[in-house]
């Protein structure tokens, strides 16, 4: 197959879990090591002492808002910025002193940065020509690469004659053709409309899995990060606040920033009233109630904590539920019907608002909850996460 030429590692077929997820093994050797890297622009600290290990064939996402330092970190990997301190190793080699044009790293730019004066094929061939690859081989590899991204028939067009999706694929082909050890993608789907973005996501994953190249994606879109990546690093104010698989980040956020940034959440400030090894009880004045959590936590007695409940984990009903704990009464303040689900904003007697989502399982209208209905909210003891920071 043509693909095998670009494959650095045979594509795993039903591999055991720890081969697919080397970060779960203690002995796995990281492919890219970022060690205590900081970047200062004058007084401003863009990246603050970041350390990160990325494994071969991973599709790693850096997720953060604008100004979180994710792009600066990416640009340091590409060689457009030099770290103020710390070092970066790729495949065991310190690349900090290597200029961008010699690094085994390629980048797909947010704007795609396709050269407007060159045809698509010449854009893709650009990197190979700089390496002095013989002309016949350049031609062959460009043709293969264009086929891979389904642009085989458009090689002679100029970038401005392509649609947005085609441009995105041309940029991907140009960045992949040098068989980089690490491919950097800056908001790869940011310029596409919603529908195209969803299709392209899976295409991107397919190409990445087929070629086995290590991908590092920067994005501000948490949905994109969740669908694309093996692991996500969430960045805030120049620091990495949590690294983990998408599922971990969503279900086990380690702090309020991650809980709020990834998905939406209801946070209740409170204090621990009962602290046992297998459960805790938290009193929250703003909810006017106590919460029961069926696992122990480690915190100082009397410490301020936050109980976090995702909107879809809350049951909403007209009748009072059986359970005694984690049960609140309120009034529906707003209903948003979204087709597959409805979003409710429920007002508690104390004035606190709670967000609840409920799948619309029935088609009939009469069963539906309405504005100003009095309702009961409840959730199970393992649906709630306690955050200490």
């Amino acid at each position, binding site marked *: 197959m043509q693909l095998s030429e670009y494959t650095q590692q045979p594509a795993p077929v039903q591999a055991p879990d720890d081969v697919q997820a080397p970060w779960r093994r203690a002995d796995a050797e990281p492919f890219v090591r970022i060690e205590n890297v900081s970047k200062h622009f004058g007084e401003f600290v863009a990246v603050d002492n970041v350390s990160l290990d990325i494994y071969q064939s991973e599709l790693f996402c850096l997720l953060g808002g604008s100004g979180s330092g994710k792009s600066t970190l990416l640009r340091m990997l*590409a060689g457009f910025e030099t770290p103020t301190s710390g070092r970066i190793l790729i495949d065991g080699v310190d690349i900090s002193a290597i200029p961008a044009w010699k690094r085994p790293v390629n980048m797909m730019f947010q704007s795609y940065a396709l050269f407007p004066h060159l045809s698509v094929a010449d854009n893709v061939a650009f990197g190979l020509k700089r390496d002095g690859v013989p002309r016949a081989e350049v031609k062959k590899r460009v043709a293969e690469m264009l086929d891979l991204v389904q642009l085989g028939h458009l090689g002679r067009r100029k970038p401005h004659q392509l649609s947005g999706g085609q441009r995105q694929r041309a940029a991907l082909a140009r960045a992949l053709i040098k068989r980089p050890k690490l491919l950097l993608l800056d908001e790869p789907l940011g310029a596409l409309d919603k529908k195209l973005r969803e299709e392209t996501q899976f295409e991107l994953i397919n190409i990445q899995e087929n070629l086995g190249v290590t991908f590092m994606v920067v994005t501000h879109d948490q949905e994109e990060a969740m669908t694309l990546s093996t692991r996500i690093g969430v960045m805030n104010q120049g620091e990495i606040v949590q690294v983990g698989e998408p599922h971990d980040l969503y279900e086990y956020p380690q702090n309020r920033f991650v809980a709020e940034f990834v998905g939406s959440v209801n946070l209740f400030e409170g204090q621990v009233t009962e602290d046992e090894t297998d459960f805790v009880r938290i009193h929250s004045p703003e909810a006017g109630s106590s919460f029961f959590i069926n696992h122990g936590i480690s915190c100082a007695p009397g410490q301020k904590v936050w109980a976090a409940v995702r909107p879809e984990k809350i049951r909403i009903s007209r009748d009072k539920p059986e359970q005694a704990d984690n049960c609140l009464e309120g009034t529906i303040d707003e209903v948003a019907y979204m087709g597959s689900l409805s979003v409710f904003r429920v007002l508690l007697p104390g004035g606190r608002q709670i967000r609840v989502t409920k799948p619309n399982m029935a088609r009939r209208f009469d069963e539906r909850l309405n504005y100003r209905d009095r309702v009961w909210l409840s959730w199970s003891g393992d649906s709630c996460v306690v955050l200490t920071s």
Partner: protein
Amino acid sequence: MNSMSQSAPLAVGRRRPSWLRLPGRLIPGRSLVASVPTLWLGLFFLIPFAVVLKISLAETAIAVPPYTSLFEWDGAVAALSLNLGNYQFLFEDSLYLDAYLNSIKVAAISTLITLIIAFPMAYVIARATPGRRVVLLSLVILPFWTSFLLRVYAWMGFLKKNGVVNDVLLSLGLIDQPLTMLQTDFAVYIGIIYTYLPFMILPLYSALEKLDDSLLEAAEDLGCRPLQRFWLVVVPLSLPGIVAGSLLVFIPAVGEFVIPALLGSSDTLMIGRVLWDEFFLNRDWPMASAVATMMLLFLVVPIMLLRNGQGRKEEAA
């Protein structure tokens, strides 16, 4: 919708090529408006060329005006006498051809040197921070608005035997004898380059300003060294600016009169100066007209065709 279709004849006219379909009352109005500038230019720009052509076919005469009439009214017979002698002389005397070729040579070389000097300036301005950019641009524009004649004059004081350049070189011990720089071809080149430098910098700047940083980074990312990046990305992408700037320098430089007159020697042959001398010194109006006609044919017409071609290419892109 109704009010739109009633009161939008102007917009409709723009899209629909046929002005015949417009309401009748509007046609005379628009033609009238368009006829004012058209007539002005016809009278003061187009007809003069016909007069030039006519006089180029006349002979010099000691008269007011100093040329013979083409039409003689001889009692009963009207005679038309065309004199091609001026054109014949143009090709016989090598002075005119030499001056023509030399003008093109001087203009082409100065354009190239101006481009080389202007490029780094435009590049640095385009890459400067917005605040500094305004300052640097003003520094380029300032000479552009200052009298052209006085700027050429400044070089006279600068280049002459006991001028600033010679003083500096002498005091540095680089030369023992003052150099003769004024009234040489060298001074003419300097004058042209100096005068038209802003005309080159401004279009280059606007081309380079549009250059996206990420394109430069992409080139670097794909293995370009800085110099390769310059030739493979910066130059091709600033080509429209290079062409526009070169035309803005080349066109006026070819017909230049003031610079060779003030900075050049009497041997500095340039076609604009030949025409001037033919008219003012020799008072040979028909000959000057013949020179003008040939310039029009072999200089202005090719340049206009070139410019039109360029414009069309840009429209297509």
